[in-house]
């Protein structure tokens, strides 16, 4: 299955008595990068978890094109790539083994043969046989990004993708995101690096205490707008 539009309608999520998300509604289209902004605990990661089909909404609905996650099942997950705050890498395995394992899990053809290319793109070409436990946070972040994108997902969900990256890697990631947008991917990224994503995001969704308080174009100073909304 494939889709070019993501629609959230009144999505809420409660954890016990705590409401993490309250009636969030918006939609976005292929070829668009949407920035999810908000203070800590605003509900950004919960929203990404729901979009990734890992967390079920307490009420409301998410539609991937014409389908809900329940209707589309495993085939929908083939079209979603998630880079979470926890990097979803096995520290005991080498960089190459991690990518090969996830490549095979996602049914990527010739996963073993393609590992070298993926590692090269992550700037880790010479670290293929090194265990991930010895990597710095930035190196793990680059590897985890490759893991999230190795199956060419349509919907790319990124939670703080710039964490631990140096200037060069940050620039490379920004360029990569522009490439994904040009390819027709639908990118949602939660970040506090407002200056980095200025000029990159097409729209921003600002969350506060689980509520969507602003959904607007990505132009102008994000820092000033963020402060104005969350003050």
């Amino acid at each position: 299955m494939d889709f070019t539009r993501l629609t959230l309608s009144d999505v809420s999520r409660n954890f016990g008595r705590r409401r993490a998300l309250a009636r969030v509604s918006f939609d976005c289209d292929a070829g668009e990068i949407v920035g999810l902004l908000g203070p800590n605990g605003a509900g950004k990661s919960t929203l990404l978890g729901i979009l990734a089909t890992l967390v079920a909404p307490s009420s409301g609905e998410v539609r991937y094109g014409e389908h809900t996650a329940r209707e589309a099942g495993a085939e929908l997950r083939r079209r979603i790539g998630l880079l979470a705050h926890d990097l979803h890498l096995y520290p005991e395995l080498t960089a190459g083994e991690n990518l090969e394992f996830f490549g095979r899990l996602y049914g990527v053809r010739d996963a073993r043969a393609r590992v070298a290319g993926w590692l090269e793109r992550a700037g880790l070409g010479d670290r293929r046989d090194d265990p991930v436990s010895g990597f710095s946070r930035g190196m793990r972040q680059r590897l985890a990004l490759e893991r999230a994108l190795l199956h060419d997902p349509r919907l790319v969900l990124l939670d703080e993708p710039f964490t631990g990256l140096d200037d060069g890697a940050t620039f490379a990631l920004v360029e990569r995101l522009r490439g994904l947008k040009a390819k027709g991917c639908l990118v949602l990224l939660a970040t506090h690096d407002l200056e980095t994503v200025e000029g990159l995001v097409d729209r921003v969704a600002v969350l506060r205490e689980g509520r969507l308080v602003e959904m607007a174009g990505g132009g102008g100073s994000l820092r000033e707008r963020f402060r104005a909304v969350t003050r």
Partner: protein
Amino acid sequence: MTDFFRIAWLVMRKDLTIEVRSREILYTTLFFAMSCVLVFAFSFVKEGRALDDAAAGILWIAIAFSGTLALGRTFERERHAETLRALMMAPADRPAIYLGKLMGVLVLMAVVELIVVPLVGVMFQAPLLAHPFQLLALLATGTLGFAAVGTLFAAMLGRARSRDVLLPVLLYPITVPVIIAGVRGTAALFQAEVDEPMVRTWVAMLVFFDAVFVTLALWTFEPVMTE
């Protein structure tokens, strides 16, 4: 269907690769199971003679306790970098992930049993080789029943704060029928005059438990793993 088993195989192979590299679970569970057998041997073996049925009970206690340890540590690894969530994100039937984890746990428990069963034989003078295939059937079906429930609960509790305490609290009451069948079947097998119909009855009972537990676990894994 082939994709289902391919995914299960991938997950099991990944778990075993990690274990071969660290040997953490194998060493700790083996040490724990052997300590268990040795301590009980000092209590239940007097003047070279073991109490009736003690060997069967000690064997299954060692299997259950070391199995619990293996289950906890296997899923603790997946929790560390939230890799269980990455597995749940894969475009595969989620029961295939369960099956892969179950097979990994079964291999670990089998390796532990490979050492512990002969140790029980030596310490309690249990006639292991008198009916090896029946003993194998009891061990295989009993271990499968225990691990099938344990894998489901350990995965479910992956994000719970008190998971180390909750796992045995939930697991033991539900697997009591498996443990009892294992103990009674093994005791019947270790008697001076083996009660073969009784052994077959307990093996059949274990096969029934396995069928129920594995089916229920495969059926419920997807809903219980969705947060």
